[in-house]
């Protein structure tokens, strides 16, 4: 148990007051005029007025009142979780998962992977640790502080990031309560490196990407012999991925007419309804390169349908591709190309698809500068050796627990006050009468 206001315990000295009052207030034994003492006989009763306090129960209740009141003023707090000794440390590790962390480190590994490995190392070194992947570091700091405050031990905030400029600054770090330490662990990235290829989860909400689909190449349904033609196709910015076997897990697929599965897929597919599919199709419609390629494509045999991605021109309606949802996989979008693989239209379609699914970096991600080490060092501090005494980031749970205990103590004070009042009034009526008689006499 800890105390918010340990100095209040100095008030425990007030407990001496009722003891003194009871000691000093002792009166000689009351005198009662009695008809005869002949029946008392020899007595061994000693005058206890010098050795015993009056009303020990009342005295105990009064001491209890003062003790409970002092304890309530001291603000008790039950320690939650973990050892409360000075060597225990709680860590909250914030891993930056912003777009810049997708860049490669000098070793070739992605910065985010290195950051996760480092976070694991930090977690192992703490008594209690939690790791959070955050794309917006300043927004995560209050929650991290609140979590540390609940642990009842030394606390440290660890940020693992490349520390791009504007990702976090000194004002954000200053919001972390002073009793908690701050450790900033930089993951070095190559400033010129592009985003390293690697799996990125579809629908990654923690990244700043606008597109709901991570950057990856669509699966191409084409005949085996078309691969060479696909490679040879001119492409403005993208390199075509060789034809890969269709995988169920892929989100986007392009089916070319030469593919053996073309008709079967087309017959079994349903119109796209998912938001990201509709969004992707809309981008494809706006893709200028695809539109230009479509202009060049001859009209083909694909019938119009509600699913058709139609490039509408004033005079020429060309069915370019048809979009549908593959059977059995509601998240898989199939673009049915009207042109054979190797054609300019096919290359433009693939490139447009890749561009539409590539995440768009936040504006600040464009700035590849990083915070210098000197500034990072100035922001760091070790954790305080004192236990956190108060919650500063609105930790309602911790304050609620301590206030419950304090309320319980005040309730005990009230209960004892009632008992004290009752004890003072509880006297045998006869004795009151006799005492009154004695005083009158």
């Amino acid at each position, binding site marked *: 148990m800890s105390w918010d206001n340990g100095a209040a315990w100095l008030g425990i000295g007030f407990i001496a007051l009722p003891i003194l009052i009871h000691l000093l207030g002792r009166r000689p*034994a009351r005198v009662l005029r*009695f008809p005869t003492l*002949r029946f*008392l*006989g020899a007595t061994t*009763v000693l005058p206890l007025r010098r050795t015993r306090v009056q009303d020990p129960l009342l005295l105990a209740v009064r001491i209890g009142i003062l003790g409970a009141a002092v304890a309530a003023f001291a603000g008790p707090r039950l320690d939650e979780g973990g050892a409360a000794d000075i060597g225990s440390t709680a860590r909250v590790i914030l891993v930056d998962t912003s777009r810049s962390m997708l860049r490669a480190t000098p070793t070739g590994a992605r910065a985010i992977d290195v950051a996760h490995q480092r976070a694991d190392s930090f977690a192992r070194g703490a008594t209690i640790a939690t790791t959070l992947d955050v794309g917006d570091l300043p927004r995560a700091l209050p929650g991290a502080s609140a979590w540390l405050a609940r642990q009842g031990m030394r606390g440290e905030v660890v940020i693992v990031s490349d520390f791009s400029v504007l990702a976090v600054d000194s004002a954000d770090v200053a919001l972390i309560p002073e009793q908690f330490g701050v450790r900033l662990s930089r993951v070095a990235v190559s400033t010129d490196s592009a985003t390293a290829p690697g799996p990125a989860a579809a629908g990654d909400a923690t990244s700043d990407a606008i597109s709901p689909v991570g950057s990856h190449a669509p699966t191409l349904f084409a005949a085996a012999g078309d691969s060479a033609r696909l490679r040879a196709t001119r492409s403005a910015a993208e390199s075509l991925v060789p034809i890969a076997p269709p995988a169920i897990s892929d989100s986007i697929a392009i089916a070319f007419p030469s593919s053996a599965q073309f008709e079967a897929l087309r017959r079994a597919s349903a119109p796209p309804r998912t938001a990201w599919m509709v969004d992707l199709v809309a981008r494809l419609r706006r893709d200028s390169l695809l539109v230009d390629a479509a202009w060049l494509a001859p009209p083909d045999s694909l019938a119009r349908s509600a699913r058709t991605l139609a490039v509408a021109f004033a005079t020429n309606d060309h069915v370019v591709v048809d979009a549908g949802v593959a059977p059995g996989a509601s998240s898989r979008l199939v673009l049915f190309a009207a042109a054979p693989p190797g054609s300019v239209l096919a290359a433009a379609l693939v490139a447009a698809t890749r561009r539409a699914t590539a995440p768009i970096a936040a504006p600040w991600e464009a700035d590849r500068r990083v915070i210098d080490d000197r500034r990072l060092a100035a922001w760091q501090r070790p954790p305080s050796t004192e236990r956190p005494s108060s919650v500063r980031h609105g930790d309602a749970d911790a304050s609620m627990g301590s206030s419950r205990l304090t309320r319980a103590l005040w309730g005990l004070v009230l209960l004892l006050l009632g008992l004290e009042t009752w004890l003072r009034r509880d006297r045998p009526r006869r004795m009151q009468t006799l005492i009154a008689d004695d005083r009158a006499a």
Partner: protein
Amino acid sequence: MSALSPEVVAAIDDLELAARIVVEGLRTGGHRSPFHGYSTEFRQHRPYRAGDDLKHLDWKVYARSDRLYTRQFRETTNLSVMIALDTSASMDFPATGTSKFRYAQIVAAALAYLASDQGHAVGIMTMEGERLSYGAARAGRVHLRSLLAHLDRLAPAGRWDPARVVERAARLLRRRGMIIVISDFYDDDDATQRALRRVAQRGHDVAMLQVLSRDELDLPFTGQMELEDAESGARRLADTAMAAAYQSAVDGFLARCRTDARAAGIDYNLMMTDVAPQLALRDFLVRRA
């Protein structure tokens, strides 16, 4: 018979009125007079009054006249009753409510009233300080009034010497009479009993009316209390733990009083101040009857 509570009776300032109320309560019960005559010398007839001994009814007169008359004998008309009242400080307990002394006053007054009303001579014997104070036994209403007034002026204080009072009271009775001692009998048991026995052996009718308060039968407090003897002023520290031994001692004392009195042929009656005087006297009369 409904009786006024002792507090109500004790609250009546006029002792004569209080005595009359008590006596009227006794008469309502039809109790016989506690005062017995000894002589067989016929003196006169008088109309029967409630309480007269039925054995003195003249049945022949009744048969002739259909009226009840009591034969009065010389000694019957001249029964002298001396009431010895304890006026020591021990009778002034408790300080609130009906004290033993006030109760004893009322009982004494009631007995005097009853005796006088039946034509007996009644006197009073007390001690005031070290000095004996008495009113000689006389009959008549005027004497009764002065007797009651004297009773009313008495106040408990100091000590009393029951043996001396009883002896003196007996000497004041020229012939055999009745001596009623009203006290708590806390003083010198042996001497008191000897004196009472001697008086009884001389042919006097002796009655002991022991008046006690319920509060003195046990230790009426909790914790520690310093008890001060009302007569001697001595103090002794008492504790609740002593209550059992105290009660045992009191019970033993009362038992001895009763036993010794009966052994000596003395009428003994214990009167508690929380019992209505009429009821207490009724018990006394029933026993004597």
